[in-house]
């Protein structure tokens, strides 16, 4: 049973490698297969950053175009899905930056000094995530996505967004605060 499982995984890896090789050679059918395999996950990622589905889809298409055109740059060290996700996240950030939606203005007076620990269980489902994220301002939402979901470090977030590490930290605390408030509202309404 264990051997059978191993061989299935082995053949899947081999298939992905073959698929990538064909995509690299410009085989449109292979590219379509790859697209169909990952499009829904990638659109989910883009939609977490961008509030309009149509815009998120445009970003996803742009991301896939970059993936196919730069496939030779994938070094096969990490996971291919991880590489694609990074491209999608960068595309989404670029889209937000172009529309000046990542401009974060901070009032030093409202900077939270420390985060309060909250271990409540919110019983979230996947369908709850996007409607809640949609209610956050772009700055909060982006930092929250990058730190909490993508598990980036504050230093990386600061570099990606062109902000200071402290701004990234404070945006995250404010985002969590707002998020808890929204979750409490949601719980009360049920």
């Amino acid at each position: 049973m264990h051997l059978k499982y191993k061989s299935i995984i082995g053949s899947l890896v081999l298939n992905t490698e073959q698929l990538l090789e064909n995509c690299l050679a410009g085989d449109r059918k292979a590219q379509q297969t790859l697209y169909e395999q990952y499009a829904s996950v990638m659109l989910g990622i883009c939609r977490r950053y961008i509030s309009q589905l149509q815009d998120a889809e445009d970003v996803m298409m742009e991301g896939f175009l970059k993936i196919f055109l730069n496939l030779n740059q994938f070094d096969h060290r990490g996971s291919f899905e991880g590489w694609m996700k990074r491209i999608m996240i960068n595309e989404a950030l670029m889209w937000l930056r172009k529309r000046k939606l990542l401009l974060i203005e901070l009032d030093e007076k409202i900077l939270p000094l420390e985060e309060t620990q909250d271990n409540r269980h919110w019983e979230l489902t996947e369908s709850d995530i996007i409607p809640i994220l949609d209610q956050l301002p772009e700055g909060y939402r982006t930092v929250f996505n990058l730190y909490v979901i993508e598990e980036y470090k504050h230093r990386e977030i600061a570099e990606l967004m062109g902000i200071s590490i402290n701004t990234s930290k404070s945006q995250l605390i404010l985002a969590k605060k707002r998020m808890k408030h929204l979750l409490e509202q949601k719980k009360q309404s049920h």
Partner: protein
Amino acid sequence: MEQEFRDQSKSIRLTPSPSSWETIRRRLDEKNQIKKIKLNPILAIAASLTGILLLASLLFMNNNREATWSNTSMTNTTEFEDHTDHTDIYWQISQLNQAYTRLDMNLPSNMKNL
């Protein structure tokens, strides 16, 4: 809360519109065409550079040939001018004249006029 968000976010799947693959495919085809068009100007530039080099080398060779010709003609002119130097001829005529005198012969009239 963070862990809950992380876990639930990983399973978010959204179906793209049916036309999105066609859009990607069309744009990939366009990029391929642009690549081909971009390749042609490179060839054109290479060809024109070769042409310019060929023309320049032809002109250079032509100039060299003209310079050789002009040098040769200058040498010829100099040689001709040397020949037109009458001193030598006069000297030869005077030698002839002296020989004729010694032999009690008259120099031909056409040579006397020289």
